[in-house]
Each structure stands twice: as C-alpha cells, then as structure tokens.
C-alpha cells in the first residue's frame, strides 16, 4: 500500500511546486479582486451609476425677435421634422425592406440610409437621424402607415426662420453651429459643442440673451439604450431664451429696401431724439433662412463668391467719401466760429486753385456773388473750398470733423461697425511719410480725399444738427422680454453718448440752410413729397477722375421744424458708384420720406406720388 506513492510515478516535489504556483496564482487573483472591489470599489460604484443614467438634452428654444410693433416675430423657430430610425425595433431580416420603403418616401437614396445605419447597428436600440428638414406632409404619410415603416419615427427639430427673408438679414444676422474655435473662446459662457449660435447681426450681438439654457431629461437605461424602470425620469426643464423687441419698424425697413431697390448701397433711418434705428438697409443682402441646415453649404459658397460682398452691412461697415454732404459740417463750423454770417457773400468763380490742386465748380460759369445759404443750396465747391482752407484752416476743420463724431465707431449694438477715417497731419506722415498740404485741407472741405465716413456716421451728424449737438447712441434693441410671461425684463433707454456744444443759433442756421437745399436748391427737383418738409443735403462723390462713376449721397431729416421732436426722422441714403448713375440717393429718400409720413408701403407711396404728378423720375 505504501508503494502507491512510488508506483504512480508522480514526484512529490513536482506536486508541491505545482501546488505552490497554483495557490500563488489564486492569491494574485484575490489581491487583484481586493483592490478592485474594496480599495477602488467606490470608483466603480460611481461609474456603474453613470453608465446606466443617460441624459437627453432638451434644447432651449431660441428667443424670438420682434420689430418695434411687437406683433409678428421677424425671427422665429419653425418646427421642422427629422426622421429617425431605431434599428433594434425593426424585425430581424426586414431592415433592407423597411429602408427601401423609407428611402422612397423621403426621396433619398437607399445607400444613404444603409450608410447611416450599418448592419453592425441592427441590434442597437438607439435613434439614428437619417434625414432632417422633412416636410410636414411626409411626416403625415409616415404616421398614417406605422405598419409599413416599423422602427421609423420623427421628432420636431426647431429651425430658425426669418419671415422677412433678405430684407432684415443685415440687422438680424443668421445662426449656425458653433465651431471648435468659437467654442474655445465661449466655453466659459456656458456654450457647448451642440450650441447653435448667432453668427452675425442681432443674433450674434445678443446671443446670450437669445440662447436660453438647454434642459435635460435624465433616465435610467439598459445597455441597449432602452428606457427602463418608470417614474424615475428626472427633468431639468430648459430655460427659454429671451425675446427681443427691436427699434426697427418692419414697414419702414421694407419701404427703404424697396426704395433702394436692386442698387448696391445702403439706407439708414433713425430717430434723432432717441437714437432708435427704424431701418437699416444694405444691398445686396442674403436670405438667412438658407444659411442653416442642408442648404447652408451651397448658399455660403454662392454668397462668398459674389463679388458684391452680400455679407457686408454697408450702412455700418462701408465707409466712403461723404462728398458734398460734408458741406453741412463746414457750414456749422464757419457760422459757429463767426467767420462768416448768413448774410455775408462772396464771389464764386468757376474754379478754386491752390497750388496744383484745382477745384472745379460743377456749374462751369460759377455762381457769381452768393451767401453761405446759397452756397450750401447750390453745393458750391469753390465756396466751401474757400471756407475750409482759407477761413477755417486745417486744425479747426479737423476738430469740427471729430466733434461731429467722425473717425470713431458710434457704438451701435450691431457687430462689426467701422470707424471710418478722419485724416490728420500726423496720420498722413505716419502712413504716407509725406507732409500735410493745403490741398489736403481743400479735399476734406469738400468731403473728398482721405476722409471716409459710414452712412450711419453721416446720419448721426444730421441727428446732432437736429438735436442741437446731442448725439443719442444709435441702437437696434428696444426691449428684452421674458418668453413666457412677455413681461419686459429690460428696456433700452435713450442715452446721450456725445455732445458737441455749439451755439443753438448755429444749429438753427444750419437747419435753415439744409432746408434751403430742398427749397430752391439742388435737391428741389427730386424731393417732391408734399407729406413732410424735408431738410438735407445731396452728395456726389468722385470715385475716379476719369470715369462717370459717382457715389450718390443724400443725408436729410424731416420734418424741418416741429413742436414734437418724436416725429422727426433722419434718412441717409448712399448709392454706390458701381451702379449706373441715376442720382438715386435723393430720389430714394423722397420715396422713403413720403412713405413714412403717409404711413404707406412702397407701392402705395409710388402710386400716391404718381397720382399727384410728383414722380417724374420713375
């Protein structure tokens, strides 16, 4: 019996060795288990909680935007539909069939669905979006035949929509998916990778107000993503974005848009005693509805390749020579400095000569003996070259230019406003390394040369003339309202941002001179509206000395005199030299003034003026 140890041929040493190794391995396993379950157990407890709790984002609807009437939104969210497939809900073996049917319904290729839902996903219980921006009728057909489209469902997906289309595009801007670069900058403000953000205009300027905060539905799911357990959905409701009410009047905006017509240029309409922007038009424009979703790619590439730069908001981002409109400022300066009185006259010949700088009078014979009122009314280049260079001098001319707000951005609540350029001797030395000469002063005097201004700045200048030197911050936002209760959260109060304290009678004289431009002056033939007394100034800026290409300006306000300053509006129209010359700026302004003060649309305005035989130019 004892020899069974030897007989079975198994060495005791090897048994012991094997046993030691095996038991050693057991202990290695046990110690690993110990570290997993006891040392690091809490880590995995947390992780197991996380894995089975899945949160779904409930998007916060973006706030709507209204015009000043606060009735119909001009930027809203329409319910578009996205069609989704839940592969695990389609019975085994029927995927191809269901996909083929769905593809036919949605008018898309079968391959596209197969690409989005590969066969490796057929057991995954998860919604996969196969098509967005699906029309309502298609969804209805989907809903009518649930048996034919097993596992196919749809969700509402709010999409930004702009009922006014291109007319409001430069004010409202457009939205788009946040880019990684934008996210890096804006992450701390609460944005995330899913955010849809304003890319331009009001949408960009007030994005934080419009955004809201997305909500969350937290629920317990199993590994296939199915919701399990009931009653344990935790809801963090989304915070709605605020609604915005703008100062813009969509009727005036449409009127101004139509009045400018298909001409490259811009229009600014504002209330001088509050700074409220009533209309801000820039042509060419773009349709912001096309810039989000499936059409975005094509729309962007088309707009970017357009040499007329449709994204440029010319009213605040385009700067041009102000030309003769600048004579308003010289009039104010000369009167204020008492260099000339309204009754003083001077003989205006056909040409003003300073060294080799020659300023020609636009009427070849000159004007003979005229006073400053007639000089402005007739837009005499020689008269104002003399005033600017001989009477005011460089220093005073430039300080009045700055005093009326040129050369700095006015601070309108739209992104990308440009400051224009007011040249100076230092500036010229720095940039061109050449000294300031008399010719430069002459150029500024007649609104040419290096001087460039934005249409908005010109409108501000007119507003300061109307307001006796006070400039209210031009603004587009009127009120911020709560989306649910519609209560006003914030109202934008008029704010004087700049004052240029000239004597009141100076402004009075300038206003009279501007009225003179319409009554018996250069603009008389075109400012035909009987609805309002307009005061203003035309401008024709040379772009090149060789071709007949001129910018056409008209800067005006109306009514000329009033007891109720709330009635007054400033209108600045700028038509680019790229268009055929038709002296359109004052003509457009005439239509705009008539439309505003008869409270009628563009068509009604045209019809009304035609009936009165006052629309000879259309």
């Amino acid at each position: 019996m004892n020899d069974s140890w030897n007989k079975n041929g198994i060495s005791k040493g090897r048994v012991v060795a094997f046993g030691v190794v095996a038991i050693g391995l057991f202990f290695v396993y046990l110690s690993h288990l110990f570290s997993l379950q006891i040392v690091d157990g809490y880590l995995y407890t947390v992780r197991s909680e996380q894995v089975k709790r899945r949160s779904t984002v409930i998007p916060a609807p973006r706030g709507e935007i209204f015009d000043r009437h606060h009735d119909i939104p001009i930027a809203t969210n329409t319910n578009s539909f996205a069609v989704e497939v839940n592969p695990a809900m389609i019975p085994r073996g029927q995927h191809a069939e269901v996909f083929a049917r769905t593809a036919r319904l949605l008018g898309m290729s079968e391959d596209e669905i197969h690409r989005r839902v590969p066969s490796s996903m057929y057991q995954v219980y998860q919604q996969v979006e196969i098509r967005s921006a699906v029309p309502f009728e298609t969804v209805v057909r989907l809903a009518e035949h649930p048996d034919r489209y097993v596992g196919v469902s749809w969700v509402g997906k709010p999409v930004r929509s702009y009922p006014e289309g291109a007319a409001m595009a430069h004010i409202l801007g457009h939205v788009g998916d946040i880019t990684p670069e934008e996210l890096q900058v804006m992450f701390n403000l609460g944005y995330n990778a899913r955010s849809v953000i304003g890319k331009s205009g009001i949408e960009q300027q007030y994005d934080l107000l419009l955004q809201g905060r997305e909500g969350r539905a937290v629920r317990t799911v199993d590994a296939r993503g199915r919701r399990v357990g009931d009653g344990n959905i935790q809801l963090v409701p989304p915070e709605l974005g605020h609604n915005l009410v703008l100062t813009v009047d969509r009727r005036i905006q449409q009127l101004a848009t139509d009045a400018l017509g298909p001409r490259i240029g811009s229009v600014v309409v504002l209330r001088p005693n509050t700074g409220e922007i009533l209309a801000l038009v820039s042509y060419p424009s773009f349709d912001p509805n096309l810039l989000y979703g499936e059409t975005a790619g094509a729309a962007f590439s088309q707009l970017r390749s357009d040499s007329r730069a449709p994204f440029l908001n010319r009213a605040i981002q385009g700067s041009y020579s102000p030309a003769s409109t600048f004579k308003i400022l010289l009039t104010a300066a000369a009167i204020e400095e008492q260099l000339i009185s309204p009754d003083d006259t001077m003989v205006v010949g056909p040409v003003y000569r300073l060294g080799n700088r020659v300023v020609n009078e636009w009427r070849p014979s000159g004007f003979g003996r005229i006073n400053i009122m007639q000089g402005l009314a007739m837009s005499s280049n020689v008269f104002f070259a003399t005033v600017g260079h001989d009477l005011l001098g460089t220093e005073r001319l430039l300080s009045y230019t700055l005093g009326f707000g040129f050369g700095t951005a006015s601070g309108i609540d739209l992104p990308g406003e440009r400051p224009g350029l007011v040249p100076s001797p230092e500036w010229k030395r720095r940039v061109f390394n050449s000294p300031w000469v008399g010719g430069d002063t002459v150029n500024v005097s007649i609104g040419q040369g290096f001087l460039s201004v934005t249409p908005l700045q010109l409108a501000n200048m007119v507003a300061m003339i109307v307001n006796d030197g006070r400039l209210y911050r031009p603004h587009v936002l009127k009120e911020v309202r709560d989306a649910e209760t519609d209560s006003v959260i914030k109202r934008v109060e008029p704010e004087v941002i700049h004052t240029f304290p000239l004597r009141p009678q100076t402004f009075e004289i300038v206003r009279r001179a501007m009225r003179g431009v319409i009554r018996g002056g250069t603009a008389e033939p075109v400012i035909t509206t009987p609805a309002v007394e307009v005061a203003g100034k035309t401008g024709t800026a040379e772009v090149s000395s060789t071709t007949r290409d001129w910018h056409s300006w008209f800067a005006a306000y109306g009514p000329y005199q009033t007891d109720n300053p709330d009635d007054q509006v400033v209108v600045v129209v700028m038509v680019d030299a790229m268009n055929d010359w038709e002296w359109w700026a004052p003509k457009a302004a005439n239509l705009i003034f008539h439309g505003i003060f008869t409270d009628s649309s563009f068509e009604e305005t045209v019809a009304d003026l035609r009936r009165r035989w006052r629309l000879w130019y259309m």
Partner: protein
Amino acid sequence: MRSRSIFAFDVYLSVATIGLLLIGILFVYSSGFNSTGQMITREYVRQIIWASTGLLLLVTVAFVEYSVVKPWVGYLYALGVLLIILTLLFGRVVNGARAWIGIGILGIQPSEFMKIATILAFAVFLEQAGGRIQRIPFLLLGSMLFLVPFGLILLQPDFGTAAVFFPVFLVMCFFAGAKIRHLAFIAGTAMLVLIFTMLPAWEIYIYGGRIPAFEVFSNVRLKIFVLMGIGAVCLVSVAGLMLLKRRYFYWIAYGTVIVGLALAVSLGTRAAIRDYQLMRLVVFMNPYVDPRGAGWNVIQSITAVGSGGISGKGFLQGTQSHFHFLPEQSTDFIFAIIAEEWGFLGALAVFSLFLLILVRGLYIATIAKDRFAGYVATGVVALFMTHFLVNVGMAIGLMPIAGIPLLFVSYGGSSMWTGLIGIGLLMSIYHHRYRY
C-alpha cells in the same frame, strides 16, 4: 471494502462541487431577470436539469473502476475527433463558432468532452512512455494527441476552448516527469508568439507612437532577414557546443531557437489572426482603446465586479447585470454577477471552493493507485485550474477575453457535464486507490 466505499464518497470534492453548482444555479437564475424584475429567460431551469443529470453522470463515473475504461480510451478519443470533424462539417454556428452539433434543441459541444477524452488518451500514452517522456521525440509524439483537437477546434474557430488544451498538456507532462527545460521551451515559445503577435497592435493602440525596431513584426522581408541572423547565431553556438563542449553554448542556442521560432511562427499567426481577436488582445492591455466596441465587455465586467464592494449589492440587486450591460452574463461573465451581487465575500467563497477542488485533486493524484490514474487526476486538475484562471481572470481584467466557461457555475450543459465527469474521474481514482 468495495461495499463500504459506496458511502465513502470524497466529502471535500462533493461539498465543493455541489456548492459551486448551487451558486451557479442561483446566478443563472439572477441573470435571467431584467431591471424591471421580469424574468426574460428560464435558463436556470435547464441549468438545474443539467446539474442533476450531470450529478448522475458523476456518480456513475465515480463508481466505475477507471481501469475498465482504459482499453476503450483510444476509441473514445477517436469518437471525439470524429464528432468534432462532423461538427465542423454540419454543426450549428453559435457566437461565430461552429461548435455545436445535435438534433433540434438538443445539442452538445464535442470540443468540451474532447478535453476529457484527450486527458484519458494522453494518460495512457504517458503510462506507456514511462521515463521516455524525457526524450524529445516522445514529447513531440505525445503532443500530437493534443495538437489534433487543438487544430480542429481552432478551425471552428474557438480559440478559447482550443487554448485550454495547451496548459493541460504542459501540466500532465510536468507530472509525468518531462524535462523542465523542454516544457519551458514550449511555454516560452508560445508566450513569445503571443507577445510578438500583439506587439504591433500595442505599438499602434497603446504606445501611440512608432518604434522603429517594431518594423521587425510587420515587415516580412525585414523579419526574414532578422530570422536569418538569429539562425546564424544559433548555428555558431551549436558548432561551439560541439567543438568546445561549453555549457553556455547550449543555452545561447536554446534562447535563439525560442526567439527565432516565435518570430517565425508569429509571421503565420499575424496573417491568420482575425481583427476581433487582435482587438481582444489590445483591449486586454487597455480596454479604453475601444470602450464601446471590443473593450465594452471588459469595462462593464470590471465595473460590475468593482462596484460589488465587500458584501455586494445583494442577490438579484446587481445593476450592471440586470440592466444588461454585461454581455454573455450567464456564461462567460457569470463571475462578474457573483462579484457584483455578493461582493468580495462571494468571490472569496467561489475561490475557496475551487481551491478546495485543486488541493483535493492534487492530493488524489499523489495517492492514485497507478500511473494512469495519477496522470488523469493531474490532467483534470489542470483543466479545472485553466478554466478557473482564464474565466475569472477575464472577468477581473487579468486575462484577455477568451470566452470559456467557469466550470460548474456557468450556464451550459456540455461544459458542466465535462466538469462533473472530471470530478467523477477524481472520485473514481480516490475511490479505487487501494490495490487488492
């Protein structure tokens, strides 16, 4: 003595086996529930049926004097091989492997029973080989008994099941007195093949950079070049051994042959290995390389185990399992449910029961009446050990995912019967340990 021994069942093995079977049935039952408390499968009923029929099988095997089987071992082995070939031709594909054969819902996995047949056949071989197992030709000859089922099962393909044969072979040779350095050569080569196969993947997924030296594994021409270099070193040292009779030349040749052989074989395995198998090796190194794909099982399993804590979440209270985050939870990952619901203490219980079987099995091997019985006992112990270490190791992240069951516990008839026949053999050997 014979009549007395009917009641002299080995208590330790009985307790351990029945304990594991009960735990298995409990957790197969647990894994059948989903999170809302609905029972979605009735696997536990089948498990009970298999356990009870398996126990009958165990008792039968235990009472049969093992030497009665000995003349039939060759036929058993041939039958096993035949069944595997039939399975390859006509079998059912389950989880990607053609490993099932049967009629209707009744089916078996011949590859499971083949483990027992191979152990028996190899024990016969070892008994007849005697001390000659120390010689390389005999070692190679014996290895053929393992290579046939190994190769056939690889064809199914079921890498996990095939791999089990490897340690069983080594352990049986070890106890039969084979030379350590021969076994180390085989084990070392196998390890190196595995390492060489996964190093390029390691370079891509884990290291994340490029290591110029690793060109050797992916560039075939370079590999052949390096192989020739290694061959040259080997030849020089063999020549040195013959001429100078210095011992260290032997070890240099030994080392170079291992490296060279592994490099050459890895040329083949890299071509043969499937992407999902490679990814299993990669996620074994770092599951977060592919957390929702190949790494999912490992991450979910480790999370389940780790969140169990000391005493677990309570029977039927596991979240990872009932929310069905754990795939294959009644078979390959049943240990994860046990560890989640019963915690470290439950895992310790499973460990103890297996350790008991291991120690008892080794003891039975030492007291076995003859060589055949001793070798069978060590083979069975090696089989149990391998299954335990691989399955539990996989659940706690110490082993790559191989998809082999935890014997006695995992859901499944073939593996359970295989395990219980193994216990039956141990008991039979214990039972018939005396000579008359």
